[in-house]
């Protein structure tokens, strides 16, 4: 396998982008990535696009070709492929691009993610996201995505003494980080009081435990090491990009508060990148719900099972802590543009490792991104490093 590097990154704004169309959104990310890389465009050999549900959000399928077309690649006949794994679709696109370059099949590949959700109402948007769970045996009985994560949260609270304040602490941290990110959806701090008094969505989860569903897009351009050196001297390597799956339904998992797909994908990624969890300096973690970030602290091996709350209480994942998590604001405050999220996480880690993260810059040489589909039936773990 060849070493794979990131030579360009771009992202749109995230949020309710009423005045922007699907095409506008992905182009803003794609153009930014091209400009960042110094490529003209014709060097791109293949494209992978993460998108969960353009068919239901926009009644438009065949969007990989559409994106290649409007990105000006039609006459170059660049192969463009859409991949889907619910809100891990972006992570899957990154992994496809990674494999294409690492294998020697292609030298320069773009991995993108995009979702345009606000052309349907908010109930419809959540209905579509909830279809990442089992439609017939979970959603049918009313177990939508928030309520499934709520049941995980209750189990974690009752078994390990995790508190509502611990979950709120994650939301507060991510909101605070988002104030430093010009692309983020919610750029305002929230207090513990506001978080703990926000209305219940699905007990014990409240409004501020749940990420929004957002419009947005992100793109990264990958190249093999030799090619990459022609374009940049600030190389960020994608050292591993691993994927695992699990039972689709929470009810079928042996332990509903351990995400086996996260455990497995991270084990493979650590081995492939030859790093241990304690060497990771910064992470972007899929906080579709606050409990997901807390469980991920454990399942990624940053802390023992059941002790995720201590990471919060000791401030270890704050931007000033030993392992800053979600410096972008995460899904909660930067925004969750479903299929874009996995790529947006990669953009954030690359910016941080290059030293281009502006006001939210931290010292880091090794970074990790975790992108989860639904309640954890898909997980993608990527490890990034400089040098």
């Amino acid at each position: 396998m060849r070493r794979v590097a990131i030579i360009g990154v771009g992202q749109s704004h995230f949020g309710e982008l009423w005045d922007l169309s699907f095409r506008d959104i992905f182009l803003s990310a794609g153009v930014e990535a091209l400009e960042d890389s110094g490529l003209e465009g014709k060097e791109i050999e293949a494209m992978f696009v993460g998108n969960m549900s353009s068919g239901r959000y926009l009644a438009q399928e065949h969007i990989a070709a559409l994106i290649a077309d409007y990105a000006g690649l039609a006459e170059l006949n660049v192969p463009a492929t859409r991949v889907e794994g619910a809100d891990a679709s972006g992570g899957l696109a990154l992994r496809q691009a990674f494999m294409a370059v690492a294998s020697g099949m292609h030298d320069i590949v773009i991995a993108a993610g995009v979702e345009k959700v606000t052309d349907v109402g908010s109930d419809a948007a959540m209905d579509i996201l909830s279809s990442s769970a089992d439609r017939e045996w979970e959603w049918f009985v009313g177990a939508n995505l928030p309520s499934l994560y709520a049941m995980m949260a209750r189990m974690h609270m009752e078994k390990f003494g995790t508190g509502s304040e611990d979950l709120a602490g994650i939301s507060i941290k991510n909101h605070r980080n988002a104030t430093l990110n010009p692309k983020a959806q919610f750029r305002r701090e929230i207090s513990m009081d506001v978080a703990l008094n926000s209305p219940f969505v699905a007990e014990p989860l409240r409004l501020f435990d749940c990420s929004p569903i957002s419009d947005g897009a992100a793109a990264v351009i990958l190249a093999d090491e030799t090619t990459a050196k022609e374009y940049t001297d600030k190389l960020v390597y994608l050292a591993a990009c691993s994927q695992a799956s699990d039972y689709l339904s929470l009810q079928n998992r042996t332990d509903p508060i351990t995400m086996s797909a996260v455990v497995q994908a991270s084990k493979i990624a650590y081995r492939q990148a030859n790093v241990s969890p304690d060497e990771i300096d910064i992470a972007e973690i899929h906080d579709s719900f606050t409990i997901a970030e807390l469980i991920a602290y454990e399942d990624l091996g940053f802390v023992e099972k059941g002790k995720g709350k201590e990471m919060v209480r000791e401030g270890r994942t704050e931007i000033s802590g030993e392992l800053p998590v979600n410096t972008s604001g995460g899904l909660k405050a930067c925004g969750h543009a479903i299929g874009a999220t996995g790529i947006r996480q990669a953009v954030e880690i690359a910016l941080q490792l290059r030293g281009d993260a502006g006001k939210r810059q931290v010292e880091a040489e090794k970074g990790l991104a975790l992108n989860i589909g639904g309640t954890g039936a898909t997980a993608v773990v990527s490890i990034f490093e400089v040098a």
Partner: protein
Amino acid sequence: MLPRFWRKIKYRYDLVGSYCENCGRSFYPPRNVCPNCRRKSNIREIRFGDCGKVISYSVVHDSENTRMRKPYIVAMIKLDDGPVITSQLVCSPDEVQTGMRVRKVFRKYGEEGESGIIYYGTKFVPADSE
């Protein structure tokens, strides 16, 4: 949703799942391949008993599911002689707690707005209730 619903009606109205003769594990909803035995699976249908206990639950206040009147209670229930099932609890939110013993009942799961189709299925009530 309708054809998908009718195809599985037997499994929704009664607690009918799958049992693997090869390893003795049981599954709900039914499946054709045992994840423990794969090609060596030997699956037959099994009807589980009516009782179990709540292992987690959530009182849902805000849901996009327009068939459901809010708040409603979803729960994961470990059947005494079977696997974990996701279902609804019919009781007051004040009454429910983890570990509570529950019993299966046949109840309405709401109706489709325009078509007027009514869905039925399995829910659970506290075991000591009428």
